């Protein structure tokens, strides 16, 4: 009845001016995905480290190295404060106090311990789509076919998977969109017989696919006073040190 094809009158396309008008109109009526819905926020300094400026829904993020746990918690903290649920699967040694200190909302965090049940795939599949962020222990054994299946479910449902490998190289089992490798961890505040641990300077390599494939190196200050802040002096590939304050 309402044949949309009939709306475009060929004669109207004769002049190039009409064509540009139409293009403008098409631009205006294009279905938009709000950027806020597609990307979950991260705290200020990390915004500049991640090529997309936030956690893209449906993506897989691998974090590894000495300091991976702190970085992974900082990555998801802002989203949690913003109302997203975080489910931690495995990581039975993760300290709940560090989770809250990193700034995650205590009302929207759950720890799931699949133990030796062998049902970790079902658990992750049940959580994808229901919670915004799933933090997964890379030590849980998954088959490659499982990771592929979960990965496509992830893209379809728009959750974010953060695979954490504390103290080890980031996992290569998942085809990750973003890979964070933490290294050269240097603590500050502790002397020889005095003081206490205050903050930590780390170098973070950011790689992955798409815009992240340039493999940038950044210097970050993790777990600064209060455990909350991750401010950094950022060192680009060129070697210039760019300091950006809080």
């Amino acid at each position: 009845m309402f044949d949309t094809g009939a709306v475009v009158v060929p004669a109207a396309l004769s002049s190039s001016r009409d064509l540009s008008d139409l293009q403008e109109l098409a631009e205006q009526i294009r279905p938009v995905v709000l950027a806020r819905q597609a990307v979950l926020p991260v705290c200020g300094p990390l915004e500049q480290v991640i090529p997309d400026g936030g956690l893209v829904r449906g993506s897989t993020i691998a974090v590894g190295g000495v300091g991976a746990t702190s970085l992974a918690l900082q990555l998801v903290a802002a989203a949690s404060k913003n109302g997203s649920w975080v489910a931690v699967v495995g990581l039975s040694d993760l300290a709940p106090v560090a989770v809250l200190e990193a700034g995650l909302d205590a009302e929207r965090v759950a720890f799931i311990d699949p133990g030796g049940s062998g049902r970790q795939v079902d658990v992750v599949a049940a959580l994808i789509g229901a919670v915004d962020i799933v933090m997964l222990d890379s030590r849980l054994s998954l088959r490659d076919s499982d990771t592929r299946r979960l990965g496509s479910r992830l893209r379809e449902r728009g959750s974010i998977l953060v695979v954490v490998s504390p103290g080890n190289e980031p996992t290569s089992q998942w085809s990750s969109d973003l890979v964070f490798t933490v290294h050269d961890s240097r603590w500050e505040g502790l002397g020889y017989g005095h003081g206490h641990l205050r903050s930590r300077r780390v170098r973070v390599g950011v790689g992955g696919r798409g815009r992240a494939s340039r493999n940038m190196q950044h210097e970050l200050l993790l777990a600064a006073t209060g455990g909350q802040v991750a401010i950094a002096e950022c060192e680009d590939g060129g070697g210039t040190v760019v300091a950006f304050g809080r």
Partner: protein
Amino acid sequence: MNVRTLVVSCPDWPVIATAASADDVVAVIAANRVTATSPAARAEGVEVGLRRRDAQRRCPGLQIVDPDPDRDARVFASIAALVDRFTPRVEMSSPGSLTFPTIGPSRYFGGDEALARLVAADIDSALGSSGWRGAVGVGVADGVFAATLAAELAVAESDHVRVIAQGESAEFLSPFPVSELGRPELADVLQRLGLRHLGEFAALKVDDVVARFGVDGRLAHRLARGLDERPPEVGPPPRSFDVIATLDPPAERVDIAAFAARTAADQLHEQLGGEGLACTRLLVVIETDSGERLERVWRHEGALSSTAIVDRVRWQLDGWLNGPSAQRPTGGVTRLVLVPDEVMPARGRQQGFWGGETEADERAGRALARVQGMLGVPAVTIPERRGGRGPADVVVRAPFVGTDGDDGQGRGVALDAPWPGRVPSPMPTLLPTEMLPIQVLDVRGAPVWVSGRGTLSAEPSTVRFNDAARDGVSIVGWAGPWPCDERWWDQSTHRRRARLQLILADGRALLVQIERGNWSVEAVYD
């Protein structure tokens, strides 16, 4: 006209379900508040509603158990099966409480009093075998509200029976405080108006109550007057809303059957919601491949939400499939039928605009409940602030109990509450799940120890992780010792230790402790 109702009430049920004996000093604590206690704990002054710390202060030897509604319901199924011998119309209200109308059985067994005595004696002898004689109360009155209060009083009485004669419920209720109505906000207002007892509230005119307190106030007023709590609009559904879930292959395990129940419950809720109705009484029926048919009625004072329906179906399945072998069905579940027995107009539920429960919270709650179905309830935990000195004490993992009505409020103390002697911030991120013994050595390779006065014998120089590795990792920074002497008043939980913060040459930072001369890794700063 009110229905004569018998209520079996067991306030200590969450404790009994843990298989503790009556002499154990046990308390169930949910969201930092005591929700149930054993008689021995009550004798020590531990009351329902106390905070965790206060309970521990009153009774240092208190054994604390986490709440688990699934466990409660599973064990309670056997009590329900006992009462089934008296009447087929047993209705479960919650794990630990059931009710049935006495009209038939009362005449058969020779009156309300005789019936109540028989029920009480039967349950008492069943519980008596595990040492819980006298933990149950049976009350008979007009309407569920009066009968429940009577049953709670009856627990303390010698024969555990309290029968309120017909027509005397209003008089029985009048001396109770208004807080018994279960509406804290209303009770607060009433108390400030000088109406402290149900009798005074009941004496108000209905029109005035409705004008001031609205529909819910009228409901509470009916309760206070000893009338049926059910408003007149509650009744049987106008048409059949039965939802049937067929399971193929037959389900032997609870989580598989519960998964089917979830879909069925959603469907039921949607159907009822489509006609503006909500379910207040639900009949759960299962059929097995060996031809058995089991059914049970669940009731709820308010309307059952979709999650609440799923919870009740899961509890019931758990009770049937994991219960005592005498009652367990012999085959797998082939059909699950949900029949709304009684409905009321849905008043709707407003979702939070500023905070509060959102759709995302509900979705996450459901997924977590489903994961609990797969892995068991203890596998899902949430952070709860407790306060303490060590990183493992400040925030702990508390069980996730996703039943209706948990608003997650007041989950423990503030994170920045002062704790003298606390490990300084930032906190370590990893707590080894098992003891990780190490050796801390000085420059000459001799073990370092901490004296009784809290001083180190020598400066630490290397850490050796196990005896097999000959060379240790050298220490590039350290601080301490921070001595910590905790719970010295209690022999069994007393801990005396000293902590060191270490930075190792490979960039790792550790929190290590020495206790009874042995060093171990307490936490890792990853």
